[in-house]
């Protein structure tokens, strides 16, 4: 996704909650319009992928670098973007899959929450809490966007 959300969170006085809802909304909407503008003819799946990436990007940007999950998310986005630019549409097949024989719930959580692989349990729980909070806000935001819909929306 072309990074239309390049802005590091400029709020000096963020609200009580971590990422500013306003900034998330702003970033996401901007990215959304960008997606619709730049590739109106691409398939829905590809666009939805980009929108999803935009959602995560806006979320992570607003959360700032203080959180491990936001850092990991941003790194992942950058990394994959660079890879895509350099190597075409190559999947991230280089990532070795861990054997799923032993699946402790902590490992599951680590896999779900970005940046959780190298964490101890306590901070993992903390990151999960923050991640859940931001995710739910993002979902609410997207839901409101969909609800307001567009004139041509289905």
């Amino acid at each position, binding site marked *: 996704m072309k990074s239309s959300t390049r802005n590091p969170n400029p*709020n000096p006085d963020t609200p009580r909650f971590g990422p500013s*809802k306003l900034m998330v909304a702003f970033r996401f909407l901007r990215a959304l319009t960008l997606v619709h503008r730049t590739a109106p003819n691409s398939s829905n799946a590809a666009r939805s992928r980009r*929108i999803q990436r935009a959602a995560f990007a806006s979320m992570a940007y607003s959360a700032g670098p203080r959180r491990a999950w936001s850092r990991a998310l941003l790194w992942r986005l*950058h990394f994959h973007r660079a890879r895509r630019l350099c190597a075409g549409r190559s999947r991230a097949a280089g990532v070795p899959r861990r054997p799923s024989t032993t699946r402790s719930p902590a490992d599951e959580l680590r896999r779900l929450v970005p940046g959780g692989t190298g964490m101890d349990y306590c901070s993992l729980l903390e990151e999960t809490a*923050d991640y859940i909070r931001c995710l739910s806000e993002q979902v609410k935001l997207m839901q409101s966007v969909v609800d307001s819909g*567009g004139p*041509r929306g289905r």
Partner: protein
Amino acid sequence: MDTNENNKFELEKNHGNHLSNHSSGISDHWQFNTSTSSMAAGLMNLVTSSPYPSASEMEPFTPGLWNHHAANCVPIGEPVAVSSGGMLPSTVPGISSPRLPHFPAETALVERAARFPCFSGGNFSGMNLLFRPSESMVPYTNAMEDVTEIQLGKTEMNTTVQNGVLLPVDNASVNRGLITNQIDCESREANFTKGGQEGNTDSSDAARNSSPKKRRTTQEEVKRGPQSSSETTKETTEGKQKVDQNSSEHSGKNGKYSSEAAKGDYVHVRARRGQATNSHSLAERVRREKISERMKYLQELVPGCSKVTGKAVMLDEIINYVQSLQSQVEFLSMKLAAVNPQPEFSTEGLLAKNLLHSHGGCSSATGLPQEMIYPQVSLYPSQQGLMHSAISAIINPSEALRRDMNAQLSTTSVYKESSLQV
């Protein structure tokens, strides 16, 4: 442990640079004074004086304090104004008072850290784990607890803890009461149980004697410092109360600080009666309590999990919730891709809507949009007008402001994503 601690410090440092600088300076300071009893006072001062509650600060403190080995500590930043020489309680108040806003967390952390070495060797009766009451502080508390946990791991090696803990230098701090209480018991026990802490114990005894303590323990009474004020200032969290009750039951005779009406908001770990008191089990217990506290917080986050008990079930619920949230995002993104609204509508209307939603609780409706007005982003020319109209529609800026926005948006530089550290 040291590496873990250092790693943690790295993370924490990233989190609060300014804080870590502050704390790192202190930690440097601590390293010098580790072996001196005055260091305890200094430590207390530093702890109390640091205005930042974040764990990042604590980290430098604790390692510096607890580690004889300077390598463990992560020295950074400028030294604190606190005198590097013997830190006497008298000096501390002057230094710490101006900077002592309200972070008992740090003190609590220090106290906790201080406690652990004392306990490691002793037949201590009960350790109370005080948690921070406010949920908003949970992350910080957790971080602090993490630090404490790390510290716990090192407690065996740290004999100076007693010294550090003993002197409740901070006059204003709530912690002092707690610390003194804790330290009293600890130091006493340390005296009994820990032969290894000889030098420290002697000095700590002296330090302890200087500060009368209110708390009584089964072991010999030690004069306590002016705890009443500090004790009263502390409030316990539920966790602490729970632990208190437990320990009260267990250590009725052991004389834990049940008498403290004021519950601090730190976590003081005391070995319960009948439980193993070596540092490993204590650290384990602290860690477990930390985990349970975070699980409680998560329980509140995840809807419909208030009745669930047990870590395993809770974890499964959390995993399911995260998975469902992620799939929801995916689904909504598919929907959004299909919707393809009109550009004007999308930004302007949606922004307005979202602003209305998000401003439900926001007081500064005008302050926040300012951020949007002047973000340093690169917009496609076709989008600029859109953005401008959207923003203007929302915040109703003046025409001049709109022009300013135009100018700014068109000329602002683009921040590379990579600028954000990875």
